[in-house]
């Protein structure tokens, strides 16, 4: 069995030996993305498992071992890991935990320390914790972030974003319930298979996969009727994790909405940009600048591959490129606001408004410091830029109740529905002046792209 080694400061290391012997548990955040990441890491020789436990015990363990005023994501992530260790499913003498550390100025960079404290109190002191960071914070002999790994991760991000995006845009309108979700699963399987053969992560493979994903989603039979379109933004964990946001996406779907959740790539680019902005604003090393610029260029290319794949599919609303998001906040908030989701959160809300998703749920853990600034702090200003924006900030923590949250979201949706029907009516009066267009239904037909309706119905028949 691997020997326990410590740093000078007494931190338990993840050694090369452990890499061979240990199972590494990772908390979940984005189900599709994380499945792909899991594979990428397994391919590099780590015995990784992304946790899926999500019973109420997760919150209980969190409350027990984490300072209750700490942000909700910390509580959940740590609760999930302790619950897993308690489950008896893993040999705790051969298990390590993995957690990300951004090194930013908000509390999130401290999760790893809170986790170690919790492990100590729970009697798991000998379970090593691996930090995944790009800030040179903590390192371990048994784990290293190599350039190859970064590139593979980035392709995982793009695939995940693409599947999430298209699934959301098709799911709300599909004729056969469940078809879109099934396609997501099928693609995850196919990608995992390709990944395990070292394929599909880069180059032409990558681009053709993306094109094929778009084609296949576009082939799902749909009936595009006007629906309330809702964007979801916020603190990264709460925004994505169904465990944290009380299954927000499911709830919105049950309210007959189309949901848009901005992808993870924007966040990755934003975090790289932060370093460049720091240098621009305050001065600093140009060597560092060059390396980060290189990485950013790479990610931008990967991002454009995704956007390119969507070009021939007018049925899909392609997200704006990161570069555009950046210009959107000009005059609203400064690029120096980088802690947490920083100005990107504001930018995402602006972009959603711009692209017809002006109904927004802004999610954050109760007391989230950066979101006092970039979320709640900017809603008024966004309203001045987009007077039709309809944003509701929702706080999540163990003591917030689902009923209260849903009631507030329902208010936002009531306003959204009124706006939608007003818009349709305005459309119909306009139409009424022209011969033939006097009912709302007609407008609806018009709104559907010409080729769409017949094609989808044909497909539906074919599918039967």
């Amino acid at each position, binding site marked *: 069995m691997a020997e326990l080694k410590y740093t000078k400061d007494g931190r338990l290391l993840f050694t090369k030996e452990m890499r061979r012997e240990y199972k590494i548990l990772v908390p979940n955040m984005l189900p599709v993305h994380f499945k792909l990441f899991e594979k990428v890491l397994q391919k590099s020789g780590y015995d990784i498992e992304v946790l899926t436990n999500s019973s109420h015990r997760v919150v*209980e363990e969190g409350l027990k071992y984490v300072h209750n*005023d700490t942000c909700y994501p910390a509580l959940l992530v740590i609760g999930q890991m302790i619950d897993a260790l308690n489950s008896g499913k893993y040999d705790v003498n051969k298990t390590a935990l993995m957690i990300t550390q951004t090194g930013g100025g908000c509390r999130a*960079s401290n999760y790893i320390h809170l986790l*170690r404290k919790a492990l100590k109190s729970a009697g798991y002191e000998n379970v090593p914790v691996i930090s995944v960071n790009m800030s040179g914070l903590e390192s371990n002999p048994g784990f290293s972030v190599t350039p190859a790994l970064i590139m593979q991760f980035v392709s995982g991000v793009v695939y995940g974003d693409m599947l999430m995006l298209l699934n959301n845009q098709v799911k709300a309108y599909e004729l056969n319930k469940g078809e879109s979700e099934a396609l997501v699963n099928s693609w995850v399987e196919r990608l995992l298979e390709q990944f395990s053969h070292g394929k599909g992560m880069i180059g032409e493979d990558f681009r053709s996969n993306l094109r094929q994903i778009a084609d296949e989603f576009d082939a799902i039979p749909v009936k595009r009727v006007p629906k309330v379109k809702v964007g979801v933004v916020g603190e990264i964990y709460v925004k994505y994790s169904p465990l944290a946001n009380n299954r927000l996406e499911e709830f919105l779907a049950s309210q007959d909405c189309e949901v848009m959740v901005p992808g993870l790539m924007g966040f990755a680019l934003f975090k790289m940009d932060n370093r460049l902005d720091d240098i621009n604003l305050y001065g600093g090393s140009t060597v560092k600048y060059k390396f980060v610029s290189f990485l950013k260029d790479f990610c931008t290319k990967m991002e454009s591959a995704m956007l390119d794949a969507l070009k021939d599919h007018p049925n899909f609303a392609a997200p704006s490129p990161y570069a555009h998001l950046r210009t959107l906040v000009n005059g609203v908030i400064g690029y120096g606001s980088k802690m947490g989701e920083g100005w990107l959160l504001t930018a995402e809300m602006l972009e959603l408004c711009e692209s017809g998703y002006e109904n927004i749920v802004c999610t954050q853990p109760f*007391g989230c410091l950066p979101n006092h600034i970039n979320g709640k702090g900017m809603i*008024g200003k966004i309203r001045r830029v987009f007077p039709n924006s309809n944003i509701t900030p929702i*706080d999540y923590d163990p003591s917030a109740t689902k009923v*209260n949250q849903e009631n*507030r979201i329902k208010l936002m949706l009531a306003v959204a529905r009124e706006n939608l029907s007003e818009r349709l009516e305005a459309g119909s009066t306009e139409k009424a002046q022209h011969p033939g267009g006097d009912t709302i239904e007609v407008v609806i037909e018009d709104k559907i792209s010409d080729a769409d309706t017949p094609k989808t119905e044909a497909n539906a028949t074919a599918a039967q």
Partner: protein
Amino acid sequence: MRIGIDVGSTTIKYVVLDDRNNIIHKSYERHLSQITEKTLAVLRTVRELTGERKALLSISGSAGMGISEACGIPLVQEVFASRIALKNLLPDADVAIELGGEDAKILFVTGGMEFRMNGSCAGGTGAFIDQMATLLNITPTEMNEAAKSAERRYTIASRCGVFAKTDIQPLLNQGARTSDVSSSIFYAVVNQTIAGLAQGRPIKGNVVYLGGPLTFFSELRSAFDDTLKLTGVCPENSLYYVAIGAAYGADTEIDLDKAIDTLSGLKAVGNYNSIEPLFQNREEYDEFVKRHSENTIERVDPDTYEGDAFFGVDSGSTTIKMVVITPDGKILRDKYSSNKGNPVPHVKEFLEHFYWKYPKIKIVGATSTGYGEELIKNAFSLDSGIVETTAHLTAARKFMPDVEFVIDIGGQDIKCFKIGKKGEVDSIFLNEACSSGCGSFLQTFAEALGKPIEEFARLGLFADKPVDLGSRCTVFMNSSVKQAQKDGASIENISAGLSISVVKNALYKVIRASGPDELGRKIVVQGGTFLNDAVLRAFEQEMGAHVVRPAIAGLMGAYGAALYASRHSSGSSKILNAAQLADFFHQVKDARCGLCSNNCRLTVNIFDNNRKFISGNRCDRPITHRKADDSLNIYDYKLKLLKEYQPVSGERGKIGIPMGLNMFELLPFWHTLFTKLGFEVVTSPLSNRKMYLLGQATIPSDTVCFPAKLMHGHVQTLIDQGIQTIFYPCLSYNFDEKMGDNHYNCPVVAYYPEVIHANMPDIEKVDFINDYLGIHRPKDFPKKFQQVMSKYFDIIPLDEVKSAAAAAYNEYSRYLEKIRVRGEEIIEEARAKGMHIIVLSGRPYHVDPEINHGIDRIISGCGAAIISEDVVSNRVEKFPVKVLNQWTYHSRLYSAAKYVLTQPDMNLVQLVSFGCGIDAITTDEVRSILESGGKIYTQIKIDEITNLGAVKIRLRSLFAAIEE
């Protein structure tokens, strides 16, 4: 026919409209959480009254959501329903303010429609007003009547009901008048609504008041009118707007008979998260009862006893406890009762009766403790008063001489402490103002469900599937309980769940223990809440340990006080005797201190023979008429030092600097920089309450820390003074003091200028320089600063900027040096005088008296010298901590804590702003550093609060422990 039903958090309302939309039936009643039954009753009534089987029907309200889902009646969201009603009934309304049972809403109808509901804090609603009335022991209607004759207004924290309660309780204990408190409560509701919901949008034009509280309480309406400077209207049917809107919005025809069928067939399935039952069977319970019946105190019949006795009073937040004991600690008489808002008459009655009934017993020592300690001591001329922790420890030792941990859960407070190796009180945990979950919490629920507390608690003992309610704020526990009811949880299982929740709250929120090993195995539990077997059992279960509950668990404070009296008795007591009691007189008056600029509001208790007791003051000056000695108080020195940075007129213009947050430390830097460059630097004046209120309406996030909120007032003040250019830069990074892994500012300090810029309408009137600057890179700074300034002024030559920047960096170092030098002088002087030294640690802006509420003066009043963390933080080498040490201000805390370990005469007290997310990390770390060296950790959470009762307990306990 159209029907709208509004099922809110506490009431159910319905209206029936005829075809011309006239209201033909309506009703409003409390539903006592029986949501399904009451809705069913409403449907049946409507069916009967109208004789119609089909109608356009919809449902609304927070509790209506569940009903809608369960039986398919369409839902109209409540705020939206109000808006539909407004559109039809009052088309020229501009703004509607609607307060409900647990929700507060503002509807901006004109000029850009916007609807807002309170977020995750439910303060300032109907439930809050009810709670406050209960606290005052009057009905809400009586509270409204009382408020009419108010003469003065107290500042009551408006954030949250629980918070306000901790403000009000001490006011009551100090004898504040009901009318004044009542009125203050209404104003707190107004402030809460405005601070929480206006978010920068002015409330003006035709304002409409809707919902129960605003309909029933004229004084609440006038408080709104007064604050908003307008006259709002409370229209006809103001209670029914949501129901009317639901009726208007109904577009589906519902078969009433079918709906009644579905609803009455609705069986909740018991589908909720449950936890282990408290007892598996009767035997377990019997064993439990037997084990706990052993911890009793002998009683002596007072009718037959003759001789000396000692009197102990514990004047708690909602109750008053009194005990008379014999010299060997046996109980002669005891009394436990609600104080009904004023403890004084209860003590008087008890003593009168005692003197009359037992003339042969002589009280030769009397001591008080608890929130009302001072008042009772002064009113009845007791011999001494002791801090609660000491009283409880004294009593606990009587039961378990080697006790390691004492936990007391009372009506409003949770107090726990460990007992150190030398037998001193160590590590005190008090519930912070926001984590409720004490006795009154159970009481509230028992009342809501219509049961007496004892019976309610007993119900839970044999519950088979207790509801897992977690540990959360009282207000939201309401919705969880409702959810559980909907899911079919029985009252027994809810009762058990609530008892368990009280325990979890104490363990995980207040003490933050994860097991008995952290607390020690020898535990004594006390306080009225533990008299409840369900709570006691839950505690033992959660801890996995057996504990001792004295039979007099509710009287321990009083018993401890009596024991103290007996140990410190001089053989006679100055307590008022029967004759003096006959002349006893007590009156309460208000006054303003006026002896310093704080202008404290004072409550003057006047007793017979011109005896007086003054409370509400921050210092002793109104009592002693001597000026507080601030010479050994670095907080005072820092304030004076900052005053030295006065405006110097210059040819380049005037720059305004808002004095809040990091400016408290960076003023020397910016002042020097700008002055050297020929700008006149004007700062906003020292904070006060009025200034806070001035900016309150523009705060977008009501959960941000108070120091940040104050910033709005500072900027507004500068704008109002006619300053044209305001400088308040964003600073991601602070100076690198090489003590941590990084040197960030916290996100709020770093970027609050963005919030000011985005949310204060008047900011457009001025040049607001909120650019990003990097003071942490002195070499790059001048060039970058020059660039930023060139956006607002003619370009300043780089040479000039460079030399001004050099001077600024110098001045900043000089300023820090001055503080360290003065700090060293204070230390030396204190040592020469044998005084204790407190390192009052926090952030630079905690120097602001409006933020620290004069806590520094309370400490100096206790006879200790005060230095701050930055005086000593450079005295240790960089060392590893167990957290990511990446914020400059916070690194100083760790270093200061480390240094304190080496100094026997120093202790650290940490000031923490409510809502400071980063302090969730620092407090645990500072505590663990201190405890690693055997030092006591004392944390004081501060917010808008102005009452210092809890703070005094903490500090006095600390000093009591130090002295032992």
